[in-house]
């Protein structure tokens, strides 16, 4: 009989447990107090960037019963039943408590006043935002964050993002007292104070009072702060308000053994609410580790909690901070090697054993790039070079060192996956080892291991060119070579193939070399480009006229209907707000285009590695919620970038408000309207590897928006690999989004003028490719099925009816012996 597992709590750790067990034989029921789906609390402060909850959401998991908005209010352990707030009762065979933690609010008088908040959930942030927006102070608003630890600095960052100048008040004599030592914290304070933060250490708030619309906080030091908002982030406490009559740990938390089991063998606890052998953990990685232990126990295994690595590396307010191992040199006789470079703004401390042989821990502030190599060496012999001033940190990592501490993946596991051929790139490593799927900070190390194992993939385009696509682009741009044969003669070998020919054809087209079916280009084109239509499985093609922004008049719609009817074309609405007409033979294509072109249509480039559509919602014209004219902008963008050949297809969308009906964040470049202008997102993708686009610029006007898109697209076209979508390109780009912004917004490389000129010439040289064929008898002559029998239909093509339309009769595929 199926056994039931009830999980109380739908946070990151509970979610992880369900993720592991969802394909098991357990029936899983999850109680979640919040009505929201599970989300990434570690990234909470990024919610302020665009207030879009979907960015934080964790993948929806099938295979479990999710009871959102249903708080578990009691448990009857005798009957093995969990009772929800609505009165619902669910029986369990195993119960896992993953209730997380609650913020600790110090007993400051006035802490319950309106305007005082905690910092823990998305709802907390929404409430803080509401307070900040109500504050009617002219000029910059002011806030206080109580707590100068990791969470406090995160909260301060969130306040900055809302336009508030934060005061950070920390009782300890330094910031981040748990992770960082005095020297590192001193530098950290100096660096964050440049960012409009005021740090008060060694003091606390003694009272908070209301004064009209203001809050006045008195500090123990005697200072008074005049504030709009107060945020408590002075730590967390395990959440154990669901009373099961079970023993708690010395610092709270459901007491569990190393198998994460309470004294009741049917009840487990994991994450921040658990006290594993008495110890509580406030980080997500140990929580994940506990989830894995319980999943293993529930699957009949005997795994136990291995203890946790509480090392951390993070970027707080743009400052790298890392702490690992015995960061405070508490081991007896431990020695410290400190390099404090106040000028460069970097601090590093290594803690070693009394004989200076074993690395025990360390603290890095300002530059934590060596963290990935150092952390795995903790407890191991320390290379002597490391202890020299400015010593190299590029050291060999032992095989059993943990590379991914979120999911406890060792170097050995990763190199095994690489060497056995299971994984040849970072994506495959992520899939088969799970490394890099937590916080992602070890991804650079994964790349390094791939290189060390000799998997550095050749950048050669194919056997005919040793250059990458980006290099070929530069060669063609610099030498102005205009034909494939001239290029391969000088820079390649052989005659070319189905990889390099279309790639070079695309580069030539990006640089503007006339019609893509010109005499020297036609033989380079893949069949879709060669026939300006999309090849289908039976050898026929589909035709997609451009419908900019998805806006179309009834008259034009009727023409499409008439053409489809007259040629018996199967008709389907695409995901890009246009219409696809299937089943045209090579001979029919020009006739179909003629009718469409006469009615004012042009090619939609559905066949090209080029701009497809710019999808839009209806925007301010009709929508009650729209804040900008999304349709107008979508049409302008589609007409500007139509026909632009690129390394892969380009999709775009414009949404008229933050509700995002056009799904712009799933596009290569997506625009979302704001009250003040437009936000531009880049690098989104649906398809095989979905990715939400990243915010590149915000609140810009239309002119600036188009300037940035021009530069972004041209920079992508110049530098991407063949068939590399913007999402993969951005992921692989050295320096990532920050670098992209430096190039296309700040013009760090000084190439923006060039990129803009290139786009200008694309826009001015654009011509409809269908019309280009119709007006040229020589090109037109290529559209025949049979050279010896023009006009005779291809006898292999036949159709049958399905739901009132013509669809291909499946081809009798000859027996292929494999």
């Amino acid at each position: 009989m199926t056994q039931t597992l009830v999980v109380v709590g739908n946070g990151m750790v509970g979610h992880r447990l369900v993720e592991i067990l969802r394909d098991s034989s357990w029936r899983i029921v999850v109680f979640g107090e919040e009505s929201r789906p599970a989300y990434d609390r570690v990234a909470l402060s990024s919610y302020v960037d665009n207030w879009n909850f979907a960015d934080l959401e964790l993948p929806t998991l099938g295979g479990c019963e999710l009871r959102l908005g249903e708080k578990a209010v009691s448990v009857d352990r005798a009957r093995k039943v969990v009772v929800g707030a609505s009165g619902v009762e669910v029986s369990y065979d195993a119960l896992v408590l993953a209730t997380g933690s609650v913020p600790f609010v110090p007993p400051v008088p006035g802490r319950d006043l309106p305007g005082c908040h905690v910092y823990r959930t998305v709802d907390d942030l929404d409430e803080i935002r509401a307070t900040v927006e109500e504050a009617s102070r002219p000029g910059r608003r002011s806030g206080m964050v109580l707590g100068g630890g990791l969470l406090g600095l995160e909260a301060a960052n969130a306040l900055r993002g809302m336009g508030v100048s934060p005061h950070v008040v920390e009782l300890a004599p330094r910031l981040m007292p748990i992770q960082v030592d005095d020297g590192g914290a001193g530098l950290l304070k100096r660096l964050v104070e440049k960012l409009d933060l005021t740090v008060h250490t060694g003091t606390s708030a003694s009272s908070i009072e209301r004064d009209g619309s203001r809050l006045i906080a008195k500090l123990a030091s005697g200072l008074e702060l005049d504030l709009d908002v107060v945020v408590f982030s002075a730590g967390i406490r395990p959440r154990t308000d669901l009373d099961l009559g079970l023993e708690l740990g010395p610092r709270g938390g459901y007491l569990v053994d190393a198998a994460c089991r309470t004294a009741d063998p049917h009840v487990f606890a994991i994450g921040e609410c658990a006290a594993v052998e008495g110890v509580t953990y406030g980080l997500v990685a140990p929580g994940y580790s506990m989830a894995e232990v319980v999943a293993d126990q529930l699957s009949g295994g005997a795994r136990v909690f291995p203890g946790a690595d509480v090392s951390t590396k993070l970027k707080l307010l743009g400052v790298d901070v890392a702490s690992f191992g015995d960061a405070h040199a508490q081991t007896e006789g431990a020695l410290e090697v400190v390099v404090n470079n106040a000028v460069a703004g970097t601090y590093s401390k290594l803690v070693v054993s009394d004989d200076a042989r074993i690395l025990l821990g360390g603290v890095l502030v300002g530059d934590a790039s060596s963290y990935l190599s150092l952390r795995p060496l903790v407890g191991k012999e320390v290379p002597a070079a490391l202890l020299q001033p400015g010593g190299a940190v590029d050291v060999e990592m032992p095989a059993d060192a943990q590379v991914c501490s979120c999911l406890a993946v060792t170097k050995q596991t990763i190199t095994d996956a690489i060497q056995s051929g299971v994984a040849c790139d970072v994506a495959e490593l992520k899939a088969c080892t799970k490394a890099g799927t937590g916080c992602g900070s070890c991804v650079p190390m994964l790349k390094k291991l791939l290189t060390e194992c000799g998997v550095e993939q050749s950048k050669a385009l194919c056997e005919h060119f040793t250059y990458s696509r980006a290099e070929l682009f530069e060669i063609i741009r610099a030498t102005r070579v205009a034909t494939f044969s001239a290029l391969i003669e000088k820079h390649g070998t052989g005659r070319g193939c189905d990889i390099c020919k279309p790639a070079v054809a695309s580069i030539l087209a990006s640089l503007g070399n006339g019609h893509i079916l010109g005499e020297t280009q036609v033989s380079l084109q893949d069949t879709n480009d060669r026939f300006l239509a999309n090849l289908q499985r039976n050898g026929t093609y589909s035709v997609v006229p451009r419908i900019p922004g998805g806006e179309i008049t009834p008259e034009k719609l009727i023409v499409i209907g008439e053409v489809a009817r007259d040629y018996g074309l199967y008709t389907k609405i695409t995901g890009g707000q246009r219409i696809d007409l299937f089943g045209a033979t090579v001979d029919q294509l020009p006739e179909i285009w003629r009718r469409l072109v006469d009615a004012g249509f042009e090619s939609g480039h559905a066949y090209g590695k080029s701009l497809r559509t710019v999808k839009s919602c209806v925007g301010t014209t009709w929508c009650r919620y729209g804040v900008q004219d999304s349709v107008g902008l979508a049409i302008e963008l589609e007409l500007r970038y139509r026909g632009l050949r690129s390394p892969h297809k380009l999709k775009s969308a414009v949404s008229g408000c933050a509700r995002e009906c056009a799904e712009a964040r799933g596009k290569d470049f997506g625009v979302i309207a704001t009250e003040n202008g437009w936000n531009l997102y880049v690098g989104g993708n649906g398809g095989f590897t979905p990715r939400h686009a990243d915010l590149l610029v915000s609140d810009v006007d239309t002119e600036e928006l188009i300037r940035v898109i021009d530069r972004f697209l041209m920079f992508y076209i110049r530098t991407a690999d063949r068939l590399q979508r913007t999402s993969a390109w951005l992921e692989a780009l050295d320096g990532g989004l920050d670098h992209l912004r430096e190039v296309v917004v700040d013009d760090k490389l000084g190439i923006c003028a060039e990129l803009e000129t290139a786009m200008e010439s694309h826009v001015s040289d654009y011509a409809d490719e269908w019309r280009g064929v119709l007006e040229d008898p020589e090109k037109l002559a290529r559209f025949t099925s049979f050279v010896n029998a023009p006009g005779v239909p291809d006898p292999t093509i036949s159709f049958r009816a399905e739901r009132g339309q013509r669809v291909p009769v499946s081809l009798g595929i000859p027996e292929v012996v494999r």
Partner: protein
Amino acid sequence: MIVCDFDVLRPEQGVAALRPDGSQVAVFLTAEGSVHALDNIDPFSGAAVLSRGIVGDRGGVPVVVSPVYKQAFELATGKCLDEPSVSVAVHQVRVRDGVVELT
């Protein structure tokens, strides 16, 4: 059977010809000037499209690549280089008095 005038062929491009029995032949002109003819039907998809494939070389061997699933076929032998057990029929073709003929 006459396919077309030789002038109609373009280097590294194919054309399709219909035979009286309804079968189809794909005829290619290589960069060096030699003419090859293969069955037009791509054995992997069943579609009559090989004439529309990209012509090039694999390791110096002239090939056409099916536009459907991208397998390469050797122009001279019809052998599929990606699935050695598969091949397409080769047809005898010649150029006489500026005319391409299947024999």
